[in-house]
Each structure stands twice: as C-alpha cells, then as structure tokens.
C-alpha cells in the first residue's frame, strides 16, 4: 500500500433531504478538518436513483463518492446498509466516519461501529482535530447539563453521529468535480432478518418546537399580548418557532402548545433567543440542550442571564422590535 490519503467519510443520508441537510453540513465540516490532517472528503451513497444527491454532494464539497446503486436499495434497511458500510470501510480504511444524527443515522452508526470494532460518540454538537490529529468529539450528557469531550485514540475509524443544524453547509459550486467509485452489491448478501411491511410518511405529527433549530422564547417580561405577538414575526424572519413560559400561557398570550419547561416541551435549538424570562429551574431544565443562548432581560441578575452565552440587558419588547427591523434590512431577498 502506498501513500493513501487519510479519508474523512460522511454517510450520505438523503432520506429527508429537503427537510434535513445534515449531510451537506457534515461535508462542510469534514472539508475543514480534512485540511487539518491533509486528507480527503468522501461521501458514501447507498440507494437507487441517487444522481441528484450525488451531484449535490459534489457541489457542496465532496472529493470522492463511493456509490452503490441497486434497485434492492430503494428502501433504507438497517441490516443491508450496515453490511455494505462495514464491507466498504474494511476495504478502504477511512480515518473518520461521520453520520448525521437522524433517527436512521443514530441507529445505523452503532451497528456499523460495533461491526468495525471501533468507538462512536453520539449526538455531537462540536467536532475538532487536536494537535495529534485525533478527532475531538463534544456531546451533551445529563440532558445537556454537562458536555463530555471524547477521543478514540487507538481504534479506527473514529466515528461520531452529529446533530443536524450545527455546522453550516458550503455554498454549492456545480463546476466542482469528484471521483466516483462504483461499488457493486456483492452476490453473497445475507438475507434480511428485519422486514419492512409498510412505511408511510407519518401524518405531520412532527413537533416543530422540539425540532426547531431556532427558537424565540418569550416570558412575562414581554409585557403584553400585543408585544408578545411580535415574537412570531421575529421567529418567522429567522425561520424559527415561538416558545413561551408558564405565566405567558396562563395569561393567554400564547397557547399551551408553546409551553417550554417541566410541564411542557423540551427544546434543543442551535440558537435560542430568550425574551423577558427570569430563568426558573422549571423552565431552564428544558432549554439546557440549546447550543447558544441569547437572553434579553432588564435585570442583569436574573438567573437566565447566568446561563446565557450573550446576556443583553435591555427592554425585551424594544429589542424584539429593533431586531425585526435590523433583520429585515440585512436579509436580502
């Protein structure tokens, strides 16, 4: 074996491509890290009729695509996909494998890691390369109360699942080219022991608030129903959802669905705006998984200000209005 490039692999998870662009986000992060270890970014695509995804992955930064296209891969299957991934990884020996933390990804990655006899960190919210070239993985534990930093020093590949919405995808460039390695399905595929009887898109029972990447949460400090309603406008501009504290729900400024906290929903956005909220434990216990918190409160000593990354001491209603104006000017449509 000659000088083989150290490869960072990204699993091409395209099942919910239009809602969930985590694969593109991971390609972008992998590019950055590949620069640090002198490696290349490869995307593994398993499926049938994948041309559209393959060209997107290349346009967004893949150097190489490992492609298995076969009519038998028309539906995602845990056993078949794990088998194929293991086989390919044993042959090509990547340094790192990144998988988006979709439902499929979080089930698929542990199967693959176990088959390869290697380590895996779940639901990372940050990745890095250290001075020795190891992948540093940061993931929340204890419901986000702690962040654990892990490495996989000895075994290879180093594997991680990564939460969607953390990294920013690169702008596409459809003039980019990449090597496409066709990997045929082997003849000796083991028979599936899990059979999908039916699979239908589930009647939109997805909870938007719990899944949102941006949440704008408002508390009693918004002052009135009218002022509170402007938070919806702000959320709309940001492409986010509105959450509320219990007093706000009791005051009927927002409906029960919006309640965030012990008696309501647990949220985990990438960015949380918290307007006029004191930060009682019944509320904050459910926002700790947020990656970045911007709190606006006129009282600098309010508990929420302690846990915020950015603590803005000001009138919540006024900042909401100013932010709406500012965003309208900055967002070019």
């Amino acid at each position, binding site marked *: 074996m000659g000088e083989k490039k150290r490869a960072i692999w990204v699993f091409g998870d395209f099942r919910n491509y239009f809602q969930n662009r985590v694969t593109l986000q991971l390609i972008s992060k992998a590019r950055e890290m590949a620069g640090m270890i002198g490696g290349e970014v490869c995307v593994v695509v398993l499926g049938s009729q994948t041309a559209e995804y393959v060209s997107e992955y290349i346009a967004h930064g893949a150097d190489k695509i490992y492609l298995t296209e076969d009519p038998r891969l028309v539906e995602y299957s845990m056993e078949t996909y794990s088998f194929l991934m293991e086989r390919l990884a044993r042959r090509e020996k990547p340094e790192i494998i990144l998988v988006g933390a979709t439902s499929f990804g979080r089930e698929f990655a542990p*199967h693959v890691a176990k088959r390869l006899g290697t380590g895996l960190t*779940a639901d990372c919210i940050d990745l890095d390369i250290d001075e020795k070239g190891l992948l540093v993985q940061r993931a929340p534990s204890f419901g986000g109360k702690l962040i*654990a930093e892990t490495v996989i020093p000895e075994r290879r590949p180093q594997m991680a699942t990564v939460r969607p919405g953390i990294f920013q995808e690169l702008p596409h460039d459809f003039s980019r080219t990449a090597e496409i390695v066709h990997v045929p399905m082997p003849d000796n595929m083991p028979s599936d022991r899990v059979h999908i009887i039916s699979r239908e898109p589930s009647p939109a029972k997805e909870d938007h608030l719990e899944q949102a990447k941006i949440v704008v949460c408002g508390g009693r400090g918004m002052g009135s129903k009218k002022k509170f309603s402007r938070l919806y406008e702000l959320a709309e501009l940001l*492409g986010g959802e509105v959450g509320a504290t219990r007093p706000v729900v009791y005051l009927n400024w927002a409906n029960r669905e919006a309640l965030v906290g012990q008696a309501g929903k647990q949220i985990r956005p990438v960015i949380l705006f918290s307007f006029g909220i004191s930060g009682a434990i019944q509320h904050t216990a459910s926002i700790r998984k947020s990656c970045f918190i911007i709190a606006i409160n006129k009282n600098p000593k309010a508990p929420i200000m302690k846990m915020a990354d950015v603590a803005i001491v000001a009138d919540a209603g006024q900042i909401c209005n100013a932010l709406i104006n500012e965003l309208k000017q900055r967002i070019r449509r």
Partner: protein
Amino acid sequence: MLKLVVCIKQVPQVSELPWDPETWHLQRELAEGMMNPACRFALEAALKIRDKIGARITAVTMGPPSAEEALREAVALGADKGILLTDRKMAGADTYTTSLTLSKVIQKIIPDFDLILCGASTIDSDTAQVGPQLAEELDIPGVAYVHELTIAGNKARIRRVADGFSETIEMELPGLVTINTTSEAPRYMSFRGFQQAFGESDIITHDAASLGLHQEWIGARGSATKIRNVYSPIAERGNLVLTGTNKKILDQLFTLFDDRIGGVVGKDLKTEKN
C-alpha cells in the same frame, strides 16, 4: 415458554441533581438513583407480552452495587429474576464495552432467549447505542425506537415512527428491540410484588471473573472512546454582557455573531445596511 430479557440501567434523578449554585458544577455523589425511564417502558412492554401469552422475564443491569435497587424494582413490577453485574473494573465503560459485557452475561445465563428489550436511550449518557450494539454483539436482528410490539410465532411485529415515517416491521426472533418512552404510563408496583422484591427475591450477582471477562475488555480500559474532559456548559456561558442603547447592542450582536446566526438561518446577514 417465551424467554424475555430486559436490560435496565440505574441513572441519577436528573431533575433533582444537586448543583453547586456558585460554580454550576454537579455534585454527583449526592444524586439519588432511579430506574432509567425508557428501561421502565421496556419492562412494561415485556410485562404486557407476558400478560398476553406468558413469558419468563429476566432483568439485567450492569452498574455499582446500588444498581440492585433498580433490579428489585423490576422484580417488584413483575420480572421473575434479576442479574446484577457489578465490578469496579467495569466502571467507565463506553457503549462498546457495555454491550460486550451484557452480551456475555446473556449468553452465559439465558442463551436461549427469544427477545431482548432495552430502553431507547438513557437520560444520563443518552447515546441510544447500547441496544443496537448488543444486537450486533449477539448477531441477532435489532429494531430501535419501538412504540408497539406484539409476538406471533417466531416473529415480532413492530410499529414505530422514525425520521417522519410510520413503519410496520416484522423482525425474526431471537431479536432485540429498544423501546421509546410513550405517553401511556407504565404500571405501578403491587403489594405482593413489593413483598417479593424485598423479601427473598431471585437476584444473582456476577463480576468480571465469574463471567470469564478479561480486564482488557471491560470498563474504561476496554473502551474504544476515552473521555478527556467534562465541563458544564453553563460555567462557560454568561461571558458576554451587552448593554447600552438598543442600537449599540444590536451593532455589537451582529458584528460578533452575524456568521453564527446567519449560518443557522441559512441567510447572509453580513450585508451592511443600504
């Protein structure tokens, strides 16, 4: 008779974790233990199968000696037998070694199991990895995030929702499922169960030696992932306080974070006004 194995984990009661209000550090030694919620639902799923068609249920846990409480609770709720794996050398296990260790005890004590039920995830480590990896270790099929489960002959019929798809799945047995927490509350302890669990109940204890597990394979030593650092995100936060006029505040906010916010919004916010 159908043989079911339920894997349960004792976890700290997160909602009551004692915090040092000054440093925001966690005082873990003061935390009380409880059965992980999803494990409770896994046990409930096993009990429902037994109620319908009869089964023998073994609960297995790996943890400190105090994890026996979770097993006693499982017996009180209706499990027939509990197995406690406890050994200081097992401490610090990642999901790779946890699933290896669990597989060894299952192979030794209940090699002819039909179905293993795990919780979908735990509230402390929250990896959702132990179930799928245990299935791999035992070379049996596995399905995660299960909502509904029935057994018919040598198959499990499963319903679940994953990635916005509602699925009906048939899995061959022996197999493994991981059970989601649902809104339906699991059963309470009966008085008879209570007496049984805290009287002479059927709980056996194993350590690494009695399972023939080599030190190199277990606990922190056998783990593929190594924890380098644990910190409280809260202690890191609150670094930046913005004050002044609204205009000044927003100028600072966008100067510092236009990239970060724009990145998540998916829009370029850098463009200066006009």
